[in-house]
C-alpha cells in the first residue's frame, strides 16, 4: 500500500507544483529580466473621446516590480500546491494565465501608456458575435441538435442586414430582417436534423458552404457594383445608459454600447433564466439528455427541437447583423472569419451554460482585441503571430482546460419514436 499512496503524491501534487514554479520563472525571465527598475507603464482608466463617465486618475505601475510580484503569485501557488494541494486546478490555471497576460501587458507597455478601458470595451464588443453564436449553440444543443452551421447563419444574416438596411434606410428593419433570415436558416437545419434525421454535421457543413458561396456571389455580382445603393447601411449609434454609464471603468465598458451588444447581454440573462427556471427550459434539457423519458411524459420532442433550433438561428441572426449594421456598415466577403466556430468553442468551454458561454466569449474577445492593441503598441512580435492569438487560445482552451466537458447526453442523436 505504501507504493500505491506514494505514486498519487508525485502525480497529483509534486508535478503540478513544479509546473507552477516553472510558470513563475518563465513569467520573470520573459517579461521581467530585461526591464530596468525605473521603467513604468501607464494604463488609462478613462475612455478616449466623449464620455459621461467620471474621470479618475490613470494607473501607473513600475514594470519590473509588478512582474516580480506576478511571478511570485505563480511561485506561491506552486508552493501551496506542493504543501497542501489545490482543489480547483481550473482556478490555479486561470490565475497563472492571468499573471502571464498581465505581465505581458506590463512588459509591452513599458515606457508607454495603454488604455485599459478601451481594451476592455473592445473585448466586450469583439466578444458580442462570438457570444451570440455560442448562445445559439447552447439553446440548440441543450435540445440535442448540433448546429455547426452557425458560421453560415452569421454570414447570411450579416449580408441580409446590410442590404435591407441600405435599401430601407432603417437599421431596425434591417435588424429584424437579419433575425428572421437567421431563424429561416435555423428552420432549414431543424427540418434536416429533426424530420429527415440527416447527419447534423453534414447539414451544418452544407449550410456553411452554401452561405460562403451565396453571399460571395451576391457580394461580387451586386454589392460591389452598387455600393451606395446596396452596401452602405451605416451602423447603430452608441447608447449611453443614464447614471450607470457614469461608473468609473465599468460604466464606459458595459453601459456605452450599441443595441446589439446590449441585446446580447440581456439574452445571456434571459436564456439562463429560461433554461433553468421555466418549464420550457426543463423540457428542453430533458429532451437533450433523455428524449425518450420526455416523450413518455407527453413532452413533444420534435416540437421542442424545432423551436429551440429556430430560436437559436434567430439569435445567430442577431449575431450576424452585428458584423455589418453593428460594426462597419458594409459587407465584405467571408467577413465573419470563423467567429461562428469560435462561438461553438465558447459554448463547450462554457459547459453549455449561457453565463459560461458568455465568459468564454469574453476570453476570446479579449485575445482578439489584445492582438489589435499590441500591433498599435508596436511590440517586436510579428503581427501574423498576434493574429493567431484568438485561434491559439481556442485550441489551448479546447484541448487542455476543458477536459471532459459534460455535453447533453443525447447531443447530435436524432430521436426515433420506437
Amino acid at each position: 500500500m505504501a507504493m500505491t499512496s506514494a505514486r498519487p503524491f508525485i502525480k497529483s501534487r509534486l508535478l503540478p507544483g513544479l509546473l507552477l514554479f516553472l510558470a513563475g520563472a518563465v513569467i520573470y525571465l520573459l517579461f521581467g529580466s530585461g526591464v530596468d527598475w525605473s521603467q513604468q507603464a501607464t494604463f488609462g482608466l478613462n475612455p478616449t473621446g466623449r464620455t459621461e463617465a467620471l474621470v479618475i486618475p490613470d494607473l501607473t505601475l513600475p514594470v519590473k516590480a509588478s512582474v516580480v510580484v506576478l511571478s511570485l503569485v505563480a511561485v506561491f501557488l506552486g508552493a501551496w500546491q506542493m504543501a497542501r494541494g489545490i482543489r480547483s486546478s481550473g482556478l490555479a490555471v486561470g490565475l497563472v494565465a492571468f499573471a502571464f497576460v498581465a505581465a505581458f501587458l506590463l512588459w509591452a507597455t513599458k515606457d508607454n501608456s495603454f488604455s485599459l478601458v478601451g481594451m476592455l470595451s473592445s473585448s466586450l464588443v469583439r466578444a458580442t458575435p462570438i457570444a451570440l453564436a455560442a448562445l445559439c449553440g447552447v439553446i440548440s444543443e441543450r435540445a440535442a441538435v448540433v448546429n455547426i452551421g452557425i458560421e453560415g447563419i452569421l454570414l447570411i444574416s450579416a449580408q441580409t442586414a446590410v442590404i435591407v438596411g441600405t435599401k430601407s434606410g432603417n437599421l431596425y428593419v434591417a435588424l429584424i430582417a437579419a433575425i428572421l433570415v437567421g431563424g429561416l436558416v435555423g428552420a432549414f437545419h431543424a427540418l434536416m436534423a429533426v424530420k429527415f434525421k440527416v447527419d447534423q454535421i453534414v447539414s451544418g457543413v452544407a449550410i456553411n458552404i452554401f452561405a460562403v458561396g451565396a453571399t460571395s456571389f451576391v457580394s461580387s455580382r451586386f454589392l460591389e457594383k452598387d455600393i451606395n445603393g446596396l452596401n452602405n447601411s451605416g451602423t447603430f449609434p452608441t447608447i449611453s445608459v443614464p447614471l450607470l454609464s457614469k461608473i468609473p471603468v465599468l460604466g464606459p465598458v458595459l453601459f456605452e454600447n450599441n443595441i446589439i451588444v446590449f441585446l446580447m447581454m440581456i439574452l445571456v440573462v434571459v436564456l439562463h433564466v429560461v433554461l433553468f427556471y421555466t418549464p420550457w427550459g426543463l423540457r428542453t434539457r430533458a429532451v437533450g439528455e433523455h428524449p425518450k423519458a420526455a416523450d413518455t411524459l407527453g413532452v413533444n420532442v420534435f416540437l421542442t427541437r424545432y423551436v429551440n433550433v429556430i430560436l437559436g438561428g434567430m439569435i445567430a441572426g442577431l449575431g450576424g447583423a452585428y458584423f455589418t449594421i453593428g460594426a462597419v456598415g458594409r459587407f465584405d466577403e467571408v467577413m465573419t472569419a470563423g467567429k461562428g466556430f469560435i462561438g461553438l468553442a465558447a459554448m463547450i468551454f462554457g459547459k453549455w451554460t449561457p453565463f459560461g458561454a458568455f465568459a468564454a466569449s469574453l476570453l476570446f474577445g479579449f485575445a482578439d482585441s489584445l492582438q489589435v492593441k499590441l500591433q498599435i503598441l508596436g511590440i517586436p512580435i510579428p503581427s501574423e503571430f498576434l493574429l493567431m492569438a484568438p485561434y491559439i487560445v481556442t485550441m489551448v482552451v479546447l484541448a487542455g482546460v476543458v477536459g471532459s466537458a459534460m455535453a447533453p447526453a443525447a447531443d447530435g442523436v436524432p430521436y426515433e419514436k420506437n
Partner: protein
Amino acid sequence: MSTVLELQGITKSFPGVLANDHIDLTLEQGEVHALLGENGAGKTTLMNILYGLYKPDEGKIKIKGNEVEIHSPNDAIRQGIGMVHQHFMLVPVMTVTENVMLGVETTRAGVFLDRAAVARKIREISERYGLEVDPDAYIKDLPVGAQQRVEIIKVLYREADILILDEPTAVLTPQEVEGLFKIIKTLVEKGKSLIFITHKLKEVLAIADRITVLRGGRVVGTVKPQEVTQEKLASMMVGREVSLVVKKQPANPGEVVLEVKDLHVRDERHNLTVRGVSFEVRAGEVLGIAGVQGNGQTELVYALTGLTPIVSGEIKIAGQTIHNTAPRQILERGVAHIPEDRQRHGLVLPFPIHDNMVLCTYYLPPFANGMVLQEKVIAENAARLAEEFDVRTPSVFVPASSLSGGNQQKVIVAREFSRPIKLLIASQPTRGLDVGSIEYIHSRIIQKRSEGTGVLLVSSELDEIMALSDRIAVMYKGQIVAIVPASKASKEYLGLLMAGIHPDEAAEKAVEATEEVERVF
C-alpha cells in the same frame, strides 16, 4: 370489486410478427394482475398499446366501463394510467423533483418553476405510500432501488389509478425486491390497481392476485396463484415441460486454474472498489460470487479479463502470473469470458452473427489465412455453432442487434465455448433472459464444469448462485466476507452477508430466522 380496465381483442402486428393476437385482459380495482411471459411473448407490446406508445390494429380499451381511445402517453395519463418502464425513464443529471414535474410543471407567476411546491407534494406521496426518497437528490447519485421509487412517485404524482410495472424486479437486489413488494401492497391497500409484467415465476406467486400467461402473442390462460405451481406456470410460458432444478453431479475439483491474491482494483472514477480479494478456482468446480451489484464484482471481472489494470496483488491463471496483460493474451491462455454487459462488451451489435462468432479467433487459422479472412470457413463455423447452441435466427448473416437477448447470449456462449478453455468467467450470464434461455445456459455451464473447466460465476441473482455453485463467496464493499460450501449456505445466511452483516452474527441470525419460520408454520 369493480373492473377498472378491460382490454378486448387487442391485436398488433409488426412487419413479419404478430406481436399481440386478440388479447383479452381485465383488471379489477385493488388487484395485482401479473402478466407473465417469455421475452417476445408480447407483454411489453400490449402495455405500450395501453400507454399510447403503439396504436393497435384492432381491439377496444375500456376504462371503468367506458370505451376510450389512447393515442399518446398524454391520453393514457389523462385516463389515470401510469407506467413504470423497465429501463427507467429518468434524466440522470436532473434532480428527483425536476424529473417528477417534467411535463406537468407547477409554476409561480405562470412562468417560473415552483420546485418547492413540487418537492412538498413529493414528500406527501413518499409518506403516504412509504416511498422513501430525497426530492433534492440527483438521479445519478441514487441507487437503482431509489430510482425505481422515483419512477413510481412520478406515476402517482400524475394521479394514476392504474399502474403498469414493466419488469420492475429485473434490476433490483433481493432486498430491494422485498422493499418493492411492500410498496406494492401499500399501493393496493390505498385502492390502486396494478399490472405487473415479469417472467420470474417466484415473484408472480408471491405478489399476484391473478396471473395471465402470454405466449407467442396469445393468452394461454388466466390463473390464480393458489391453483398453480412454478412448474405449471413455466410450462404454460414456454409451451413444454421445463426443468427448474439444475441437475449436477458432485464436484470433482482438480488443479487450481485461477488464483487471486490480495487484489486491489480501481473503478473508472479511480475509487478503490476491489480491496484485498483472495480466492482460488479449481478445475471442475463452480465458484459463485454473490453480492449486491456494485460491491466490486464488475471491477474484479474487468481485472481478471485484462479490461482494467490492477493496482496491486496477484492473479495467476493456470499457474502463470497475469500482470496487466492484454485481454487477447489472457484469452489465449484458455480463459472464456461471458461479460456482464453483453451488448457493450460481448458483441459488436451491428456486425452479423457469423463475424461475432469469431471475435476471439478471427486472426487464427482456419478463420484467417495470413492477412485474409476466410469468409467461407467463418460462415460454416457460425452455421454449425448456431445449430449446436440453439441460436434462433433466420440466418447467421443478420446483425447481432436483431436477435433477442437470449439469443444474443447464446451467440456469446457459443463463441466462448467453441475454443479449448480452462477457465470460464461468467458475469450475470442470465440477466434479463427468459426461462427457456436460462435453463439452456445453466445446463451449458454445468456441462463445461463436468468437462473439467473451472468456473467463476458472478451473479446478483442469489437463486442462480445457489443453483450452480459448489462454493459461494460473498462480496461486500470490495472484499470477500466469507467463502462457504454451497451445501452449507442458506438463502437467509447469504442474504445477511450480502447486506454487510459479520459472518458470525449472520450465522446466528440466520438460524433464528429459520427457527422462527418453523414456529410460525
